[in-house]
């Protein structure tokens, strides 16, 4: 975009030339250096050779151009013998019409359509019939879009750039001038290539680092700014058939660049983009309009560029006051950018050169600013990357440890109690969930089972489960209602807005099963849902109460619990597995049920637990749950 801004200067002000002293390779070529006559205004009669211009002011060539937006220049030339005469003009203006003895012989741009080009060298063939040896008059109608700089340089009529001579020789001279001008910008091209690579690097970086969105905007800034050089070079050196399209593409790059400038600091400092900035962005998008802007609107464009450059400075300054990390660096970088833009603006206003020559190659201040930006921000990215990697590794380690603890808590602590067969399956999701299952031997060969689910995920859920398991291991009773009450008391201060569903069950060898349920999902006996009284989950209210349900189990009866990871498994169409399908699965083994839910679409931890009462001959039935 610095290139685009340079082009802005260039569009507003014009192209410059370098003197080539030895461009003559044809039979002869005469420079049109010397004293011309000029007059401000526009009158077609001034093209006539009969017009008396002796009263017009003198214009020295080489020398500065007149300070006027519309004027004519005239010169009398003595032409020698030639077979293929032509005239080459230097980068005189954005639009000109050339007359030879009053005859219109060529245009650069179009006055009637107000179509202008970036000033450059151009050659017109002279009509042979009217190019006999003798005295002739060259008259040039000139239209400027600005009286400021051209391509960052003061506009001048340079020595040797305006000539009359053999067509082939002048075409060769024109090519040489263009080639030399192009070569003077090779360093700029090289820098641009580097900035494009840097832009792509920053755009592709986000998944790898923290604050990735900010770096994506930064990449867009560099990319849009760099790609702007393509239409810019087209306007300078390409054919003159699509200037409006090239300008539109250029301003598209400018718009994206400026929007990136506004978004980058907001993303970096994690600030919401205010509505005023969004409206401003809409206006900036209009800069790319294919409709040519009037001159006054170009001033508005320049003001917009400046405003967009100052917003990040103001934001970085505000963040610096809050002692935000990296704010100082960002403030410095954006201050340099704003200074470069202000410098270009002032150069336009004051008609002072903006280009800087390094090893004979011209760059603009914004090139240098971005040369500063890329390594400075790359260093920040590297630091952020290291921090992000360290943090990710640390978190990964912690999550692995938590997952290991959770798996141990959920599945490893199952006991063997004579008369009962325990079948359990646990399949963790990508995040740590809150499922838990514990079984304990009770007095008199009873089996005490607890299944549940703490709401939420991650470390918080895992820690809550560890608290629950700790409380269960220190319980004072195997009576389901008492245990629920104890757990509720523990969880009231631990849940932080969450809850824990929990079902406690005491299996007695005589076949009696006592169940108390605190909001846990359906449980099944031999594939049929067991009707239990609803109850609030744990950790919600202090005075919660639950009801106990008693069932007489027959030998080989099987009681099954599933976590919500089964019932609420979701497929690609977002359909739930649901209670009906869950009931249809309820006669299968725990691992088969878990696998079926996983295949349906796992979205949460899956826990399936079943207890089967085995017939044990001669087993005493002295233990009562009551």
């Amino acid at each position, binding site marked *: 975009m610095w290139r685009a801004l340079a082009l802005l200067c260039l569009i507003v002000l014009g192209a410059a030339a370098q003197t080539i002293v030895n461009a003559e390779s044809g039979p002869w070529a005469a420079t049109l250096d010397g004293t011309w006559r000029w007059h401000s205004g526009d009158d077609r009669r001034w093209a006539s050779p009969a017009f008396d211009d002796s009263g017009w002011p003198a214009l020295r060539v080489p020398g500065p151009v007149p300070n006027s937006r519309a004027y004519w220049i005239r010169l009398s030339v003595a032409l020698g013998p030639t077979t293929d005469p032509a005239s080459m003009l230097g980068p005189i203006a954005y639009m000109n019409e050339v007359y030879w003895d009053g005859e219109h012989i060529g245009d650069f741009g179009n006055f009637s359509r107000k179509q202008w080009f970036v000033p450059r060298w151009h050659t017109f063939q002279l009509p042979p019939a009217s190019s006999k040896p003798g005295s002739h008059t060259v008259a040039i109608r000139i239209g400027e879009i600005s009286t400021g700089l051209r391509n960052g340089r003061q506009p001048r009529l340079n020595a040797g750039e305006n000539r009359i001579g053999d067509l082939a020789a002048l075409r060769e001279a024109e090519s040489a001038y263009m080639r030399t001008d192009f070569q003077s910008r090779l360093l700029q091209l090289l820098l641009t290539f580097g900035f494009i690579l840097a832009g792509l690097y920053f755009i592709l970086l986000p998944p790898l680092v923290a604050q990735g969105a900010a770096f994506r905007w930064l990449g867009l800034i560099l990319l849009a700014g760099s790609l702007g050089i393509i239409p810019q070079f087209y306007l300078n050196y390409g054919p003159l058939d699509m200037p409006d399209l090239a300008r539109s593409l250029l301003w598209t790059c400018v718009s994206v660049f400026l929007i990136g400038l506004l978004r980058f600091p907001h993303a970096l400092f994690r600030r919401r983009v205010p509505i005023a900035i969004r409206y401003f962005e809409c206006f900036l998008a209009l800069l790319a309009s294919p409709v040519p802007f009037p001159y006054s609107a170009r001033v508005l464009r320049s003001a917009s560029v400046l405003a967009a450059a100052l917003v990040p400075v103001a934001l970085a300054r505000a963040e610096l006051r809050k002692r935000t990390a990296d704010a100082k660096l960002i403030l410095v970088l954006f201050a340099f950018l704003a200074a470069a833009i202000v410098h270009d603006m002032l150069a336009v206003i004051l008609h002072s050169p903006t280009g800087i020559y390094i090893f004979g190659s011209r760059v603009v201040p914004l090139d240098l600013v971005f040369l500063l930006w890329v390594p400075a921000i790359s260093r920040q990215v590297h630091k952020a990357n290291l921090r992000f990697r360290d943090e990710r590794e640390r978190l990964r380690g912690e999550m692995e440890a938590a997952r290991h603890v959770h798996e141990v808590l959920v599945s490893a602590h199952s006991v063997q109690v004579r008369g009962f067969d325990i079948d359990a399956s646990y399949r963790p999701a990508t995040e740590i969930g809150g499922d838990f299952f514990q079984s304990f031997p009770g007095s008199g060969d009873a089996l005490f089972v607890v299944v549940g689910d703490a709401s939420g995920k991650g470390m918080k859920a895992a820690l809550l489960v560890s608290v629950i398991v700790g409380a269960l291991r220190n319980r004072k009773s195997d009576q389901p209602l008492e245990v629920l009450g104890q757990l509720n008391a523990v969880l009231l201060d631990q849940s932080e807005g969450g809850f824990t569903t929990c079902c406690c069950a005491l299996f007695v060898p005589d076949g009696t099963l006592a169940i108390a349920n605190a909001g846990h*999902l359906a449980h099944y006996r031999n594939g049929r849902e067991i009707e239990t009284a609803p109850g609030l*989950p744990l950790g*919600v209210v202090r005075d919660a109460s639950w009801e106990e349900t008693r069932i007489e189990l027959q030998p080989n009866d099987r009681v099954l619990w599933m976590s919500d990871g089964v019932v*609420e498994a*979701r497929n690609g169409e977002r359909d739930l597995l649901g*209670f009906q399908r869950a009931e249809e699965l309820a006669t299968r083994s725990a691992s088969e049920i878990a696998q079926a839910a996983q295949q349906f679409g796992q979205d*949460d931890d899956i826990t399936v637990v079943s207890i089967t009462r085995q017939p044990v001959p001669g087993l005493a039935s002295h233990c009562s749950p009551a």
Partner: protein
Amino acid sequence: MIPQPQTKAKVERNGSVAVLRFEGDVTSTSSGAVLGSYEKLPPETKEILLDFSKVQYLNSSGIALVIQLLMEANKSGQKVQTFGLTPHFQKVFTMLGLTKYTSLHPSESAAKAASGG
């Protein structure tokens, strides 16, 4: 992991009756939609209708938010009627014992009739 549509909440008020209409999945990220919209209700609100007819899914964290809302409303003496829940989540709400704090209705008109609105 299935991407979760962001929850939207719309508040409609008519005197002392407020209808909170939710849309999208209700999950841990729905705090602003569920509790935020409840907290913005004026203190004179006496009846609250929760509309879940555009909610397909509530996970345990989302249900936790609804429970918090119900507890707060209960403390403030506000009555809460719920409608539009899918049969699956009607069963979940029932098993969680939430019917002690809110009545579940098949339609908005039934909920309004129950609220006396």
